[in-house]
């Protein structure tokens, strides 16, 4: 399980970092730095809360590995 960010939506409001400081920090501009390493089912309730709280709807839960982006 990991938290995926749609960077085109994220405005750096920071609610995610406030709700889950043990996993989410903010960079110098306020955008989230998410540590998804070892994120497991025990944290799934907290993760769902974070995803639901995002005012920009920029977060979602992904269960796969990051999708490679193929350029032409």
């Amino acid at each position, binding site marked *: 399980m990991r938290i995926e960010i*749609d*960077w*085109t939506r994220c405005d750096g409001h920071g609610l995610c970092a406030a709700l889950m400081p043990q996993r989410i920090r903010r960079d110098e501009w306020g*955008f989230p730095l998410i540590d998804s390493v070892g994120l497991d089912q025990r944290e799934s309730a907290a993760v769902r809360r974070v995803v639901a709280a995002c005012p920009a709807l920029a977060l979602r839960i992904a269960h796969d590995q990051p*999708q490679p*982006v193929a*350029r032409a």
Partner: protein
Amino acid sequence: MTAVTDRAAASRAVPAGTVMPAGTVMAAGTVMPVSPITAWSIGAPRLLAGLDRAERVDHVTHTAIHGALPATDNAHLLGLLDASALYGRGGAGFAFARKLRSLAGPATRVVVNGAESEPASRKDRALLTRVPHLVLDGAISVGRAVEAREITVAVHDAAAYSSLARAVQERTEATRVQIVRVDGGFVGGEEHALLRGLAGDTSIPAGRRRPVSADGVLLSNVETFAQLAVLLRRGPHRFADTGTRDEPGTTLVTVGGAVARPGVVEIPLGTPLGILMTAAGAAPAQAVVIGGYHGSWLPPAGEIALNRAGVAAAGGTFGAGVVLVVGADTCALGELGRIAHWLAAQSARQCGPCHFGLPALATDVEALYRGTAPALAAAFGHARAVDGRGACRHPDGAARFVTSGLHLLQDEIDAHLRGGCGRPLLRQLPMGGHR
């Protein structure tokens, strides 16, 4: 746009008495009154075959050189691709067979990406303006194999458009090919951005990383389709009679910077960098930029093999085959700073880390250039802060470009902190000002 072919003007473009090196094909003023794209080859030309006789290979000449286009279907095409690997030539180097297999259901569209948004790259434009029928052969063959409802070629400029439009008229197949001009920036060539541009929207990358093949779109670079046309005729065995075992065949590179003969060069995959530099008349060099502005700064080591594996072994990425020579006479750190600022300006400004991070990174490099601040740690920090944090690969590529430059130019950075390197900034790295 009216297409005007003026062969007399074209021949005048070559000054009388000019002696060209063997194998050189002088680009003539093909269709548009823009600076022509010089194209030549090291070894026997495949893609560029015929350009020693004509400035543009029309359909009659094309058929005489290459023979008729063989029939193909999906199984046949996959068989060829399994027997002879063909990687996408747009930069990411995705295996074409994998792309073909990952199509969800029947393809709705085949899209030939000729946006060529890498500022120093000219290879796709060279193909489209000078040997358009190879590109069309590839696109039409793939279209038939996957039973596509639509074949679209996206091109960047008017010269490519008119050459291709003329090529479509020269052919006799019933297959309809749509040609569309797209006008995106550096990120406009990313596949989602391109599809948005084709649909009439702004050419910016999408937020969700979903492969376009999942939507029945088979999209690849112009050169990939041209190579496919070569593979279809030669077959896997003869296709592999040059190049390396894992990367057979030839490739196009765009060579520029401090060289006497900039242009598009067809080389066997794996050709040593030194051979290309000598053939291109490179000035004494302090660095090379390989892979364009999402690529890397590397030492000008002649033994670097120009293919994906060879450049990766040297610590870089081959990308779309751009090779730029940074001469010993220019301020390399200044060159790096110019391109860092340009990369920052190319952000689509959709994603925060890229929008804020790339200008910060460029400012760090400028501070190093001015020798006013020990900004090296800040630069590496900002490069890390943008890496992988965007909807497209622009921040990752920009970070790779700048960090590779900073690693290579340690002595330059020290010199600048002590008051300067003493070399003028000659602006050898091209910036693609026409975009």
